[in-house]
């Protein structure tokens, strides 16, 4: 299979570039950044490189894409050619351009949703841990009840009720994932609120918002950052799955999940094109996971034996 070989070759090249960049960073950087560069495993360097590439593609999408996102520029299901590098889709839109715009739409929406879930979940979780008492109990039991329903099933239920649009998609997924973030933020904060410095700050007469922002949050950063990465992966996969099911991001907006679904018939003819968007999803999730793994390792203070 020539295609499989080129995929493996491409990944190996990315690894090589990551290794090269790491070597350059080790030589050129000074101080703390240098020890960070020494510490970073190859997988995490690869992850950072991939994330950087995705970010660049998402931002520069209009400049990179050879054709507009939604225009029909050719026949249906054209094969790979010099004009349409990855062929055209079910109604004749350029696959490569849609793949590039998909980076912007899918990743952008997933990022926005994660950020929203995170802000809501973290603030509520830290506040519940700080205040305690009946508010904490009420919120926690409520979250427990919501978490007893599988995330995808609950999202499907909410999407049926509120209808499918990008806005409801973002709100629904954010609401579902905020419960998970709440759990973690509360658990982390519970260990912090019993510390003496929180007591001291309370005696100084500081308000809840100050306590959360200046005393608890800085000490809860490490687990929360790792959770953000993991949560992003879950949100990203959830949005892709829903889009794949035809219930998420709707056409004509270019989106990786629905692109797989739309062109899936090609797979039964042995064409790999519809797998490319799915591969893009997988590559980004793997990259984020690699970086999160490294961060967790650093936070736990374990050294490789």
């Amino acid at each position, binding site marked *: 299979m020539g295609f499989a070989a080129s995929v493996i070759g491409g990944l190996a090249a990315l690894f090589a570039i990551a290794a090269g960049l790491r070597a350059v960073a080790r030589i050129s950087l000074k101080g703390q950044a240098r020890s960070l560069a020494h510490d970073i495993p190859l997988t995490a360097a690869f992850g950072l490189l991939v994330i950087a590439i995705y970010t660049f593609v998402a931002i520069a999408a209009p400049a990179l894409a050879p054709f507009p996102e939604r225009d029909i520029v050719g026949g249906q299901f054209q094969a790979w050619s010099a004009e349409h590098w990855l062929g055209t889709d079910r109604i004749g839109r350029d696959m490569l351009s849609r793949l590039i715009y998909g980076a912007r739409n899918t990743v952008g929406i997933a990022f926005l949703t994660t950020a929203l879930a995170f802000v809501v979940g973290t603030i509520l979780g830290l506040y519940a841990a700080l205040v305690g008492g009946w508010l904490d109990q009420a919120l926690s039991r409520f979250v427990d009840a919501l978490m007893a329903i599988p995330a995808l099933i*609950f999202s499907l239920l909410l999407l049926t009720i509120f209808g499918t649009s990008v806005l409801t998609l973002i709100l629904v997924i954010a609401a579902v994932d905020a419960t998970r973030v709440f759990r973690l933020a509360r658990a982390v904060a519970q260990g912090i609120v019993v510390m003496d410095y929180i007591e001291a700050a309370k005696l100084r007469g500081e308000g809840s918002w100050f306590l959360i922002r200046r005393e608890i949050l800085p000490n809860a950063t490490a687990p929360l950052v790792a959770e953000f990465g993991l949560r992003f992966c879950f949100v990203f996969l959830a949005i892709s*799955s829903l889009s794949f099911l035809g219930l998420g991001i709707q056409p004509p907006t270019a989106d990786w999940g629905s692109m797989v679904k739309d062109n899936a018939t090609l797979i039964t003819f042995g064409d790999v094109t519809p797998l490319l968007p799915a591969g893009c999803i*997988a590559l980004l999730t793997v990259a984020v996971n690699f970086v999160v793994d490294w961060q967790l390792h650093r936070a736990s203070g374990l050294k490789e034996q």
Partner: protein
Amino acid sequence: MIATRIALGIGLLFIVSVVIFGATELLPGDLANELLGQSATPETLAALREQLGLNDPAPVRYWNWLTGALTGDFGVSMANGRPIADLIGARLGNTVFLALYAAALSVPISLILGVLAALWRNSIFDRAANAGALTAISFPEFFVAYILVLWLAQTGLFPSMVRINPTTTFGDRLYMTFLPALTLMLVVTAHMMRMTRAAIINLMASPYIEMARLKGMSPLRIVLRHALPNALAPIINVIALNLAYLITGVVVVEVVFVYPGLGQLMVDAVSNRDIAVVQAVALIFAAAYVALNLLADVLSTITNPRLMHRR
């Protein structure tokens, strides 16, 4: 102790049913308003409300819905007016079959891989298995499914679509559902394997393992006889959690392979906004999920004598 846990589980199930039912009450107007949208006239609205039974107060409707669901009567579908119990009937069996099939494949494989990875810690095998697991966790289910279709169905080894009818024999069924089951297996094995490895490695530092080692026991025997029984509780937990995960996993996989199961039904119902069907299927999925978590708790209590002993 186990009785309390089961009672808690039933209570949780009750709350879950309230949430699933009550979610429709979140709408600014009511369901009839939302479903008819722009085309609503007072007459059609009144007719639809009558048909959906929206004129009763919510607690009464909830009670009717719950008692109906407990006796297997989920009402009728809004899209085609057929009884939901008929729609669910055979599909429930198909979905359970697929989930059990995937579980039968994945549980032994992930246990063996996990034990081996723990045994040969930091070896090439361990590293490869770990990297593979991390990668597999990150893949969307449909990606795994289509790769399998491309590899195994293209060559004609296995069918890429599942057509089950009453005359299908058990062997045929196993053959036809192999690809969906394999997809689910690949998705859940990674997590189970990693947790098995972690649970065993955690125990390997305990004094009694050191003692066994000093006695000159073989590493395999140490792992199987001393570490594994003590690691059972976390392993059972992970297995149950992953079986629960299979419940949501089946939704996407069923759509890929056009498998006639509950997941497919639910996705269709969501796109038709057939809320009655979605609620019914969601209740079934959620009940299975809660039950599996409950089972995990009970089993891990039973495997740990210290927990069984009343303080």
